């Protein structure tokens, strides 16, 4: 019996949404955010960083520009191809690896690991999320930090709107978001209108509150897990726009 591929294994989705997900201003913002990221991770010059679910590599590239040794991992070939092209253009040495985050593991190879921009909670089985965190834990040097940046359950509830749409580069992007299973996950419907054609995708993501994500990291073996409302280290409270959780090995 063939299993139905989950939404995040649909290459067409990532390709179609690349422009909407990574507009220039987001890429530019990464340059500034990288400095804050480095501070949260307590990185020292030249240390090794793993960018798990690196996409087209906006953080991988920026961290490489700042002199860190970077490995970017993603499952989407076209993003990696683009990331490699950009690295070559700037003569940056970055390693890009195509792999599923549930499988990638390199014992004690990294001083820090990041997973940013809602790239967490894709798997239907929560044990897979835990497995990812355990892989990360094993891939890190003692004392290293793991940073996850995602949409927190509280922040999402605070600004919840069932339907919204945007215009990105002349294209219309529609989303519908519904919390399901007692707010433990989100079902998303995304519609993209491109050149007179409509494409529809359905996504599912597990939603974590700050305390839930902290609990998961602790179960994976991380210590002194901190919760922030952004890369800048602001508190995760009623004004926070995102959830940033940092755990220490």
């Amino acid at each position, binding site marked *: 019996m063939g299993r139905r591929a989950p939404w995040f294994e649909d290459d067409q989705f990532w390709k179609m949404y690349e422009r909407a997900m990574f507009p220039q201003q987001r890429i530019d913002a990464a340059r500034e955010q990288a400095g804050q990221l480095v501070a949260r991770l307590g990185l020292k010059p030249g240390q090794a960083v793993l960018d798990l679910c690196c996409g087209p590599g906006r953080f991988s590239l920026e961290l490489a520009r700042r002199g860190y040794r970077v490995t970017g991992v993603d499952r989407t070939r076209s993003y990696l191809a683009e990331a490699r092209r950009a690295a070559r253009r700037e003569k940056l040495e970055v390693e890009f690896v195509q792999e599923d985050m549930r499988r990638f593991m390199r014992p004690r190879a990294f001083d820090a690991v990041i997973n940013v921009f809602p790239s967490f909670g894709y798997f239907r089985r929560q044990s897979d999320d835990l497995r990812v965190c355990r892989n990360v834990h094993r891939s890190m040097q003692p004392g290293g930090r793991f940073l996850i940046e995602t949409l*927190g*359950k*509280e*922040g999402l*509830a*605070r600004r*919840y709107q*069932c339907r919204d749409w945007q215009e990105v580069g002349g294209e219309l992007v529609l989303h519908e978001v*519904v*919390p*399901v299973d*007692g*707010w*433990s996950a989100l079902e998303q419907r995304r519609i993209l209108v491109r050149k007179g054609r409509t494409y529809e995708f359905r996504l599912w993501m597990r939603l974590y*509150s*700050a*305390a*839930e994500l*902290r*609990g998961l990291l602790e179960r994976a073996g991380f210590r002194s897990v901190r*919760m922030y409302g952004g890369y800048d280290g602001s*508190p*995760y*409270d*009623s004004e926070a726009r995102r959830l940033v959780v940092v755990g220490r090995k």
Partner: protein
Amino acid sequence: MKRKTPWFENDAFWAVFRPSMFGEERWQMAAKDAEPLARLLHLERGASVLDLCCGPGRFSIELARRGFGVTGVDRTALFLNEARRRARQQKLDVEFVRSDMRRFVRPRAYDACINMYTSFGYFENPADDLKVCRHVLQSLRPGGRFLIQAAGKEWLARHFQPSDWREMAGTFVLEERKVAPGWTGLENRWVLIQNGKVMEFRFFLRVYSGVELRDLLRRAGFARVDIHGGLNAEPYDHNSRWLVAVGSKGR
């Protein structure tokens, strides 16, 4: 060493807010809620129910009226006096016990336990919340159910307002809230203005998401936990006013 008295052990707080917490409409609501509550708890005729943090007995009395054997537990003597008076007036036989929810245990004495209206998350130490759940589990018979009704973290976030106020029969109740870092709780400041007199109280409330409350009950040993968005077993989602968790003890 003298420990600081926690806010919920301050009788003046409950006395002062009694009218605004338990107004007439809340009693009527309890009368309406009792039916779905009994259904959700699978209460059979004559079942025994523990009403943990019963206050002046809104649910205790409603359930007793329906023929269930009820024990109401609360730490506030003032509320228990009112509850006893009301039960007497209606010739209902309800047992009211003054005790702290962290200490009350009666092994296998109840078919169900309820904790209503956000009477959970008061303790400074989170381990105390777990202790309460474990005591409830002990106090239940096999197959018994524990229902917690609370303002869920998701609802609180969705409707968060840093400050607002209410007016009730010439009394003003001003509320100010701050989210504790990590959204683990709310720092509350309540100001009551009555006949020109201003009284101020501060308290911390630990708040739970649906998943967090489910996990807590599981950790306490409940065999099964269901999360609902209300007493009619609605789904817990963006339309829910309440978080209702029902834990079932194994058989």
